[in-house]
């Protein structure tokens, strides 16, 4: 296993509301196994026309009931965002980092 490595990411979009807002800066840790229940930085599969999707922040809700070695991801904002309901579960390799916490948020 790789050494746990911290990194910084900035949230873009509204799919993780109310937990994370657009512009929030998060401390994330790479090289650790997925932790169900926590938000993660994930790699989503390409869209229907084959264009890659950007690295995304999603909540890993747990193992895929139909494939226990894979992970089910969801947005916190039920109204928005690409989730496993759209793209299926993700392999462990596509769970890039776990969100450790919020380090900075714009006031207001």
């Amino acid at each position, binding site marked *: 296993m790789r050494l746990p490595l911290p990194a910084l*990411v900035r949230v873009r*979009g509204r799919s993780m509301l109310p937990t994370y807002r657009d512009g929030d800066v*998060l401390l994330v840790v790479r090289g650790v196994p997925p932790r169900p229940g926590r938000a993660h930085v994930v790699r989503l599969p390409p*869209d229907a026309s084959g264009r890659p999707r*950007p*690295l995304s922040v999603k909540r890993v809700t747990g193992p895929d009931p139909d494939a226990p070695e894979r992970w089910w991801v969801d947005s916190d904002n039920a109204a928005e*965002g*690409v989730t496993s309901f759209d793209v299926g579960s993700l392999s462990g390799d596509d769970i890039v980092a776990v969100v450790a916490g919020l380090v900075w948020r714009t006031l207001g």
Partner: protein
Amino acid sequence: MLSLFRITDVAAHCDLPCGVYDPAQARIEAESVKAIIAKVADNDDPDFRVRATIIKEQRSELVKHHLWVLWTDYFKPPHFEKFPQLHTLVNEATKLAGASGTKGEFDAAKADELLAKIDEIDAIFKETKKA
């Protein structure tokens, strides 16, 4: 790659690029509009006519919505280059679904014109799917 010394943007996007598009959505709503116009012509009940008017306006608005989604999300610059009439076509079709068309009037001919425009858009859509 992710780093502690550089802030990487991660998406939490509102858009759901599901990639499912079809002018059939607009056509079904336009067919409802046409059927409502026919039903109102045969019915003098004022309550029915009020309901029909409201529903016809909603369905007309949905026709516009579905055409706009195709126009903004599905069709790409190469499509507009290959089919230069597409902008005008979408403009004319959405106008036909608007206040001067099926939304504001009870004119079956307008509904037929609208369906014909949607068919033209559909023909282009099917061409782009072949490529």
